[in-house]
């Protein structure tokens, strides 16, 4: 059965690139435009397991750090690995992501191979 990954990014084209890279490797993708929509999509899943979450940092309404912080408050996603996919590279913001509960930090633009390697390392069985 295909593993499910939630991709949260305000750029539709970036979501499409991530989607393309991951679906070609056999993953099932759910997309959300920002943190608020991401939490809504997770709530609508009705028990369906999400194996990994990829989130942007700079997003309108709710940014990635806030999204991950909110996510980790929910018991269902406490151990769901999160990858931050962003143009940001400052140690300060990275530390914020780590504190929020992210497991990896990928700087855009990303190479599909790198993304898949990171996903395969972190994804839950």
């Amino acid at each position: 059965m295909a593993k499910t990954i939630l991709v949260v990014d305000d750029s539709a084209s970036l979501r499409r690139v991530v989607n393309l890279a991951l679906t070609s490797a056999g993953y099932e993708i759910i997309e959300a435009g920002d943190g608020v929509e991401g939490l809504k999509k997770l709530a609508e899943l009705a028990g369906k397991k999400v194996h990994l979450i990829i989130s942007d940092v700079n997003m309108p309404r709710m940014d990635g750090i806030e999204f991950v912080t909110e996510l980790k408050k929910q018991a269902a996603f406490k151990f769901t690995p999160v990858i931050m996919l962003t143009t940001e590279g400052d140690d300060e913001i990275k530390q914020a992501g780590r504190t929020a509960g992210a497991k990896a930090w990928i700087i855009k633009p990303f190479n599909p191979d790198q993304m898949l390697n990171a996903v395969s390392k972190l994804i839950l069985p």
Partner: protein
Amino acid sequence: MELRTTVSRWKSALQRIDPTLRFTLLCTVIAVVFSVLPLLQHAGWLQVLAFVGVTAVVLVNAWHAGLMAQNKETDEGKAAKARASTEELRQLIVQIIDIWQPQSASIKAQIEKAGMQVIDHFSLMIKEFDSAGFGGVSGHADSSREETTISLLTMCERELLPVLNSLELIIRSKDTLLDSVNALVRETVELKEMAAQVGQIAAQTNLLAINAAIEAARAGNAGRGFAVVAGEVRKLSQLSAETGKNIGDRVNKIGVIMATTLTSAKQAAETDKKVIEHTGGVVGNVLTQVRSLGGAVEEMREHGNTIRVAVEEVMVTLQYQDRVSQIIDVISNDMIRLKGLMESADNTLPGLDEWVEGGQSSFRRHRGILQTAPANAGSVQIEELKPKVDRNSRALKAQPAKKSIAKSDESSDVTFF
């Protein structure tokens, strides 16, 4: 020269005076001169000099007072004009921002749309690419079709090679069969000779029995028993002669049949050999074609890999559309703030640092990039950030312009916590 300069200065000073004031002063001078003219006839040169001096001082004072009043009016006019210009400038900025905002939104939408279309086209290309059996763009995609093609060709070769060997084996076994039939024919000839020998032995035995019967007759009563034995031996020899004759006949028949069989076997072997050799040739040709096809598939796979790497690079490059959108968001956000500032009654303008720090935190860094970078920052930023994909290792080596990002890249583009 100095006199000319002085005159010129005075002339310009006079021209700067308001025409009404100039006229009033002129009239005053003329009135005073004409009124004192009768007195000057009786006055000495000191009185005249004093009169001229006093008149000059009065005139200069009046002139100065007039100039001051005029300057005051001019300053007030300038200030009013400046206030009006500032207000016009504010209104112009607000109006321009109102034009720019939808334009920037339109640019963002068009870039997004175009980016999506390009990605969709590439997505379709990759799907077709996968369907053609060259694996996915990511290098991790399901390459079962490609494997199937290669496996099929390998299986063809693996299965056809034994067929070729089996055909050669059949040819050899046919030769063996022919040799066996030949040996059988030779044995039949020997059997025929043996049958002839049996006939000879029977004839000699018969002769022996006849002689024994003669000798038994000579012996009289004593040889009667021996005569019975000799008769039986004779019967047996006759029986043996018949049997030998029968064997000879049968062997002859077998010999004829074997000769026919040998001829047929030779003809069949010839025919089979030709058919098998032809079949072997066909199988060999198919095998050569399969090997050639395998080589072509391998070559196509190499070309496919080159295209896949190129598509990967495009996929990386397309991500700059996201960055461009973010920069447009920052500009759009700044335009909204600038418009708000222009529409507010507050006349104090923020400094650059205050302006950069004044935005929402989520876009502050991008704004920082924009504000601190040179005029052509957008293109420079994108060019410097363009990652280089090594065709061999396909390792990403980004070269960000931003110092903090570069520091991060020194270790890796992917940081695991």
